[in-house]
């Protein structure tokens, strides 16, 4: 990683170990999230990218290692301090995670009403501003079940930035989107990051879209960081694994076939 001033690091992940049951998900990952930048965490499905966001958000606890946000170890905070810290974080879930029994307007207003005592007229203005930013001011009366997947994520994004957080985390924002919605989301993430001076963490395996907006990329596989650098540095990487992932090749160091006996042995063994 390029030399970065310590004060520029918003989130510092050190020697991260985490396991589900007996299956290790992370075994010594080190990641730095720079202030004001879009940092992408990329890697094949099932490598724990979403788990990493939950660890940063304090929803899961690492088995070893530390995660610091603005110098504070997230997992050593009391419950009330953790909830206070989370006001500085926004998170866009893959599903949107909108509250299904209230309208788009009320969803965006929800964190504002929960955490502030602002008069309703001001809440109204704030919500309209946030919805305007994601292009859905006109959809404020709709219910979540009336939204398309892309619209739901944009509403979730408006809700995520409702309290003007320091950092926003995106969990697979492009998955399952049509090209137009995907283009809109790519632009929005970049625009909102730059306009609001946010720090963004994008977890994704959509290489093209993520590379187009990321300032820095971490490639994660097998519980560790395989490679990291700017998009240009990764594209120029000589690592076969990096090239396989960045170019979406079916076979390479990451095998197409799940580990098994030889095909011939399997066929000759017959039905067991």
């Amino acid at each position, binding site marked *: 990683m390029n030399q970065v001033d310590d004060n520029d690091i918003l989130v510092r992940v050190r020697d991260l170990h985490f396991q589900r049951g007996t299956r290790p998900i992370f075994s010594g990952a080190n990641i730095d999230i720079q202030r004001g930048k879009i940092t992408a965490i990329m890697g094949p499905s099932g490598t724990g990218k979403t788990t990493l966001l939950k660890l940063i958000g304090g*929803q899961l606890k690492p088995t070893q290692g530390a995660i610091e946000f603005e110098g504070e170890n997230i997992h050593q905070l009391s419950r009330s301090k953790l909830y206070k810290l989370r006001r500085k974080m926004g*998170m866009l879930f893959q599903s949107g*995670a*909108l509250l299904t029994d209230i309208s788009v307007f009320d969803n965006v207003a929800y964190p504002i009403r*929960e955490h502030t005592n602002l008069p309703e007229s001001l809440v109204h203005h704030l919500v309209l501003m946030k919805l305007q930013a994601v292009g859905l001011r006109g959809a404020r009366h709709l219910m979540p079940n009336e939204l398309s997947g892309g619209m739901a994520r944009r509403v979730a994004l408006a809700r995520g930035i409702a309290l003007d957080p320091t950092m926003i985390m995106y969990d697979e924002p492009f998955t399952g989107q049509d090209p137009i919605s995907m283009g809109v989301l790519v632009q929005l993430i970049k625009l909102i990051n730059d306009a609001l001076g946010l720090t963004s963490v994008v977890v994704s395996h959509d290489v093209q879209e993520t590379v187009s907006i990321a300032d820095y990329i971490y490639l994660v596989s097998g519980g560790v960081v395989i490679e990291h650098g700017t998009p240009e540095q990764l594209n120029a990487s000589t690592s076969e694994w990096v090239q396989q992932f960045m170019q979406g090749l079916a076979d390479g160091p990451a095998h197409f076939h799940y580990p098994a006996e030889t095909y011939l042995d399997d066929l000759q063994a017959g039905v067991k």
Partner: protein
Amino acid sequence: MVNPVQMLGRSALTFFERLGRAHLFLMDALWGFFSMVMRPRLLVQQLYSVGVLSFLIILISGLFVGMVLGLQGHYILSNFGAEETLGVLVAASLVRELGPVVAALLFSGRAGSALTAEIGLMKATEQLSGMEMMAVDPMRRIITPRLFAGILSMPLLAAIFSMMGILGGYFVGVGLLGVDEGAYWSQMQSKIDFSADIINGVIKSFVFGVVVTWIAVFEGYDSIPTSEGVSRATTRTVVHSAFAILGLDFVLTALMFG
């Protein structure tokens, strides 16, 4: 092959581990009472959806149970020429046993299952995780108001059930079968004791309210976040609540009247 003893041991460990988790969950939810007091609107909303929406089923069921009690009671009492004590039989059966027990069974089927399904689906659709990341504690915002709404609603619903049952017994006994109206009410008034019968019935329904709502919210919160997981959790709520109500009823009856 897994040794049956190992299987038994594993099941026992799983059971006690879950029981311990359920108790910690209850303590946490009860602790949220103080923050709930600051926002009574949350409780009022849940009192409506848990209590008021269970009102109709309690009302109708109570009426029919009382009518059946009137019929059966009259049939048996008339063999001894004691039809005038029909009011006592109906009221005692209802306030001591049937009111708290049947109302709690109905409550677990109507409100308990709905609570589990609602919370389970919120978990499956990441709404609870979303709240956590919005710095809103789902225990305080979702669980505590529902738990207290159930605890407060249950004794009231049981009382309404008993009242409707007494009216049902009256319609059948006095209206249809010719029991003397004065005897029906006066016998009831003189033989039903406020503390021994009514207060004990209220205590029972309060205990059932705590247990049924606790089971319902815990099962939802602890459910596997898939459609099958939520479905199983909802079934468990109704089954476990029924066992808990009937088992506790025996224990409480033995303590109160034994």
